[in-house]
C-alpha cells in the first residue's frame, strides 16, 4: 500500500501528511492531524457535523478525499477563535444555550460563519434554509437560530 503525500494549509498553517487515496478529508483531519473538532455523524453528507471551509467554501469534509486537499486552504472549527478570543458566533452559541450535547456545534458554527460571510443580515428563514444540512437532535434548532441572528447583529455593529 503506497500512501500519497499531500501538502496543504490548515487553519493558516502549512501542513503535510500521508494518506490512502480513498481516505476522506474528515478521516485525515481527525486521525492523522488530530483535529477531532470536526465530527462524523453520518459519513454521507447528511448531517453536516463534519463541515469545514475548503478554499473558503462550506463543504462536508466526509465528502472530500484527503488527496484533494493538495494546495488548498482548509479551515476547521479549531481555527475559528483567534487566540483566546472566541468568534462572536462561538460566544453567542454559549450565551443562548444553543448547544445541549454539543456534537453538532462545530458543524453549525462553521456553516453559520460561511453564511454570515456572504449574508451579514439574514432573515430567520434564510438561516433555517442555509443550515438545513446541519442536523441537531437536541435543541429543536430554536436557540441555534436565535444565536446566529444575534451574532449577525453584533458583527454588523448594532448590538
Amino acid at each position, binding site marked *: 500500500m503506497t500512501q500519497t503525500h499531500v501538502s496543504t494549509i490548515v487553519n493558516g498553517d502549512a501542513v503535510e501528511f500521508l494518506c490512502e487515496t480513498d481516505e476522506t478529508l474528515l478521516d485525515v483531519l481527525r486521525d492523522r492531524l488530530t483535529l477531532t*473538532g470536526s465530527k462524523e455523524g453520518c459519513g454521507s453528507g447528511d448531517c453536516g457535523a463534519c463541515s469545514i471551509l475548503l478554499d473558503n467554501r462550506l463543504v462536508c469534509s466526509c465528502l472530500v478525499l484527503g488527496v484533494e486537499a493538495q494546495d488548498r486552504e482548509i479551515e476547521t472549527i479549531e481555527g475559528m477563535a483567534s487566540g483566546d478570543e472566541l468568534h462572536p458566533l462561538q460566544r453567542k452559541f454559549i450565551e443562548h*444555550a444553543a448547544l*445541549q*450535547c*454539543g*456534537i453538532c456545534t462545530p458543524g453549525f458554527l462553521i456553516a453559520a460563519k460561511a453564511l454570515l460571510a456572504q449574508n451579514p443580515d439574514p432573515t430567520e428563514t434564510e438561516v433555517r434554509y442555509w443550515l438545513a444540512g446541519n442536523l*441537531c*437532535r437536541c435543541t429543536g434548532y430554536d*436557540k441555534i437560530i436565535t444565536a446566529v441572528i444575534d451574532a449577525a447583529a453584533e458583527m454588523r455593529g448594532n448590538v
Partner: protein
Amino acid sequence: MGTHEPAFDVVGTRPLRPDGVEKVTGSAKFGADLTAPGMLVGKILRSSHAHARIRSIDTSKAEALPGVKAVITCKNFDKAKISPAKQNILCNIMAQEKALYDGHAVAAVAAISNQIARKALRLIEVDYEVLAHVTDVEEAMRPSAPVIQDDMFTVGVTPQPTQASNIAKRSEFGHGDVEKGFSQADVIIERQFKTAATHQGYIEPHACLANVTQDGQGELWCCTQGHFMVREVCAELIGMDISKLRVTASEIGGGFGGKTTVFIEPVALVLSREAGRPVKIVMSRDEVFRASGPTSSTSMRVKIGAKNDGIFTACEAELKYQGGAFADSPVQLGAMSAFACYNLENVKTVGYDVATNRPKNVAYRAPGAPMAAYAVESVVAEIADRLGIDQLELRLKNAAREGTKSSYGPVFKRMGLVETLQAAKVHDHYSAPLGPNQGRGVASGFWFNFGGQTCVSLNINVDGTIAIAVGTPDIGGSRASMCLMAAEELGIAYDNVRTIIADTSSLGYNDVTDGSRATFASGLAIINAARDAKAKLCARAAKTWDIPAEAVIWENGCAKPAGANAGNFAPLSLAEIAANAEKTGGPIAGHFEVNAGGAGVSFATHIVDAEVDRETGFVKILRYTVAQDAGKAVHPSYVEGQFQGGAVQGIGWAINEEYIYGEDGKLQNPGFLDYRIPVASDLPMIDTVIVEVPNPGHPYGVRGVGETSIVPPLAAISNAVSAAAGVRLTELPMSPPRVLKALEDSPDR
C-alpha cells in the same frame, strides 16, 4: 425536606455553562475523539438476514490476513457463566445460535487499519440457514408466526402457556369497573391506532476505546449515559472483576435513552484482550440504525366513554408494542402512563410486549408514553369535538390533581397538570386566528420521572473554589445546573464551582442518566453534600474560635457565631476556612449517597398549528407552544432547550420518521437521507412556558424535565392535522402519502 417554596439567589439564573468553550472550539472529547498508542481498529460483521440459524463461522481467512490482530465470535464469551438477567444483552452484542435481525453482530475483528479491518470482515465466512421472519407486531402475535425465542412463554396470563410464542408478557393496570362505566356514558368513542418504530437519532454514533492489559486490568472510554452500568455489564460479560475495569464517560453526543445499554463496549474489550493492544470501535451511521436503539412500533385500541357534560365515565386501552428480537418494549410504561392525565373512576389498560425480528428495543425519551398518549389524546380530542366542549376545558374537567388516584395505582402528590392547561389556555397562541387548510391541536402528557442510586463528592479547595464529582454524564448542560445548586447552597459565586463527571474508579455507583434524573437526583445529592460540607466548615470555624460546633451557623457563604451568646467573632468565609484547613483537621469535603425517591411526576400541555396541502398531503408545522411543569427551573435556558428538543423529536415522529422494512426483513432506510429527522427549515420557533409547581420530593422543588416534552407532540400534531384535513388520522407517521390517502378516503370529500 420541606415543601416550602424557597427564594433563590443563583438557582433560576442563566449563567454560561462551564463546558461551553470546549464545545464551541472543538476541543471537547467525545466518544470517537480519543486515541491510544498502538491502537487497533475494531469492526463488527453484521447479519444481513432478518432471522437465520448460524451453522458455522469460519474465521481462518480473516485471521491469516496480514495486519489482523484478533477475530472473535460468540465463542469468545462464556455464556454459561452469565446471569439470566444479562443473557439477552450478551445475545444482542454477539449473536449466539441465531441471527435475530438485519444488523445483528456475528463476529468482530481488530486490525492495524480501517482498510484491513474492512477487508478482514469480508473474509469471514458465515454459513446461515435462513429462517422465516416477522417484523410486524400484529403478525408476530399470530399463532402461525415464526417463533423468534424458543423459550418465550407469555408471562402475565394464567395459566401460563406451554407453547412458545412471540408474546413475552401481558400486563394490566387500572381500577374500577370499565363495563359499568361505559354503560353510564352518553358518548363512547373507540379507535384503532398504529405507530411506526422510531430511533433516538442522536448525532454521535456509538464509540469506544478499550484497553485490556496483560495483567487483566481493563480501561474503557466510551460515550454512554451510564458508565457505571457499562462497567458492571461489561465486567460480567467478559468475566472480569468489577474493580479491574475502569470506565470513563466521554462527552456524549446525544443519547435520549439510546445510550443506556452496551453494544460495542464488551466487543472492544474482548478484542483488546485477545490482541493485547488498545482497540477502538466506532459505529457507522447505518450500524447505528440497524443495530442500536429503536423504540417500538405499535398497534393500539383506545375506548373512552363520557357524559354529555364531558366527564369521563370509563377509559380503556389495549396496547401492543413490538419490542425487537428480545421483546424489550416499554409497553408496561405505556400502559401505566396512558391515562395518567385524568382523574378516572373506571380505567383499564392492557399491554402486550411482543418479539419481532428487529433490533433490541432500547429506551427512547419517556419510553412507551408518547405512543399511548397519542392514541388516548386523539380520542379525547374527538370526544371534545363530539360534545362541542373546548379542548382544554374538557381536559381541565377531567384533569388529575393532587390527591387523585392515578390510573397506574399511586395517589398523586403535588403536581402541575392543571397549571399547564391553564397556561395553554391564556397563551395568545390558543386564540390566534387560523387560515384555510390550517388546524390547531392540543394534547397533554405525563411522565413518571426517576431518582435512583446516586453518589457525589464535593471537595473544598484551598483557594475556596469547589470541585464537584458526579457520576451522571452531562447530556445537555447538567453541569451548569449542578454548579448552580452547589453555589446556591454554599452561598458562593457560580464561577467558583466546577463539576466534572468522575470515572467509575473515582466515585461510588451511579445509575444511568435516564428517567430525567440527572438534575433531580445528582442535584439533590449535591445539595446534601453541600450541607454535609457546610456542617464540616462550621465545625472548623468552631474549632478556630474554640466554641462548640452547634454554636456556628452558615449564612451567605460564611460561618458565623449562632448568636451573641456564642461569642463575638467576625464571620469566616468559605475561602478563609479552606485556606486554614490544613491546621484545623485537613481537607474538607462533603459527600452524599442515596437511592433517591420522590422524583415527582411531570406534566405538559402542547399547542400546535399545522397546515395541510390537500393535493399532496404535505404537512407544515406553523406554530408550536410547550407549557410544562419543571418544578423549579434551575437553569431556565436548558429547561427550555429540553422542552424544544422534545417537541421537535415529537414532530419528527409524528410526520416523517419511520423504520421501513422490506419483504426480506431488511431495514431499507438506515441513514439520515431516508430516516427523516426534522431539519431547521421544517420548523417554526418553539415557544415555551415554564410552569413551576415545586416537587415536594426535592429540596429546591426540582422535577425532571427531559422526557415529558416528547409525550404530547404526537397527539397534538395529529389533532392539528386532523382538524386541518377535516378527517381523523389514526396512523403515524403522517407522511404525505398517508395524509393524502386519508383525505381521499374521507367521506365528505
